[in-house]
């Protein structure tokens, strides 16, 4: 069978959702951000909630997320996205409101905002991209950087006595009464992507059910920061990140 006969509109089984804009993403080749943007866009499309969704972009690599998903966006100061989301949702309870934050934004400078938004049980979705490093500023240590991991500010590897310990913020958030769904996912292979997408969809659905905050961590790669190829970065993540940041649902009620 000729390829021309296969490539016909009626045979299309998968393609870019129209909820993703045509802008070329500024992310490095192989960056997990792109995959997560895509599955968020697909969830919004499949739920038919483009006109009801407000996204909040962070400071960090994903600051420009608003260029890629075709919804209304607000861009937050560093770490403050959960505070923005709190007011956006409380004043517009008919809207689906989500924040999209990296580990520097959420787990470091914005630690206070995320804790209290989760503790109040705001009916929002928090997407947490954890790649254990600061990507945008050039690969410095994050709160989630693993012990021994080399970064621009831990050039000899992270040491507990100098730098403290990697922070499992997702487990902390799970202990707060206000959260209803806390899960840790990844997006390095098709099965993981499908699971992560299901988790994000559930989180969005929760936000209309008055159940509290849904928190979805995606363990991610930063191949530029880690100084690995995208494929090797995925492998490094599986071997080094997953044993410490174990995947799966931490809380679901």
């Amino acid at each position, binding site marked *: 069978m000729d390829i021309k006969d296969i490539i016909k509109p009626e*045979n299309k089984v998968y393609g870019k959702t129209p909820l993703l804009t045509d802008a070329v993403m500024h992310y490095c080749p192989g960056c997990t951000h792109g995959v997560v943007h895509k599955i968020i866009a697909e969830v919004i499309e499949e739920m038919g909630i483009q006109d009801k969704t407000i996204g909040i972009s962070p400071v960090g690599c994903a600051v420009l997320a608003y260029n890629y998903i075709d919804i209304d966006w607000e861009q937050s100061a560093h770490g403050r996205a959960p505070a923005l989301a709190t007011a956006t949702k409380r004043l517009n309870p008919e809207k689906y409101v989500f924040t999209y934050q990296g580990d520097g934004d959420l787990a470091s400078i914005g630690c206070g905002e995320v804790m209290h938004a989760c503790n109040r049980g705001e009916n929002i979705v928090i997407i947490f991209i954890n790649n254990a490093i600061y990507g945008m500023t050039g690969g410095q240590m994050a709160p989630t950087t693993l012990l021994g991991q080399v970064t621009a500010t831990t050039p000899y590897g992270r040491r507990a006595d100098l730098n403290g310990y990697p922070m499992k913020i997702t487990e902390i958030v799970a202990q707060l009464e206000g959260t209803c769904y806390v899960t840790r996912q990844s997006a390095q*292979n098709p099965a993981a992507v499908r699971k992560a997408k299901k988790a994000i969809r559930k989180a969005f659905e929760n936000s209309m059910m008055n159940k509290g905050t849904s928190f979805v961590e995606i363990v991610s790669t930063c191949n530029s920061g880690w100084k690995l190829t995208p*494929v090797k970065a*995925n492998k490094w993540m599986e071997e080094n990140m997953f044993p410490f940041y174990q995947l799966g649902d931490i809380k679901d009620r």
Partner: protein
Amino acid sequence: MAVKGAIVVDIEKCKGCSVCIANCPTNTIALSNEVNGKGFNFAIMANPDNCTGCTNCATVCPDAVITVYRVKI
């Protein structure tokens, strides 16, 4: 019933990250020898006969540049 697939890559948007290649179960995809306007080697169907249209490549593609087609034969 057998299936046969094909992919179309948005060449100018592909960054050649190769995550699709690593996740292709049928060894269909490879990087091109030539480069696109941004200087990236891009994903191509190196072995088109192998493609089953499983969508794995497009599912993991961070830049959403792969469209997948499938027919039953």
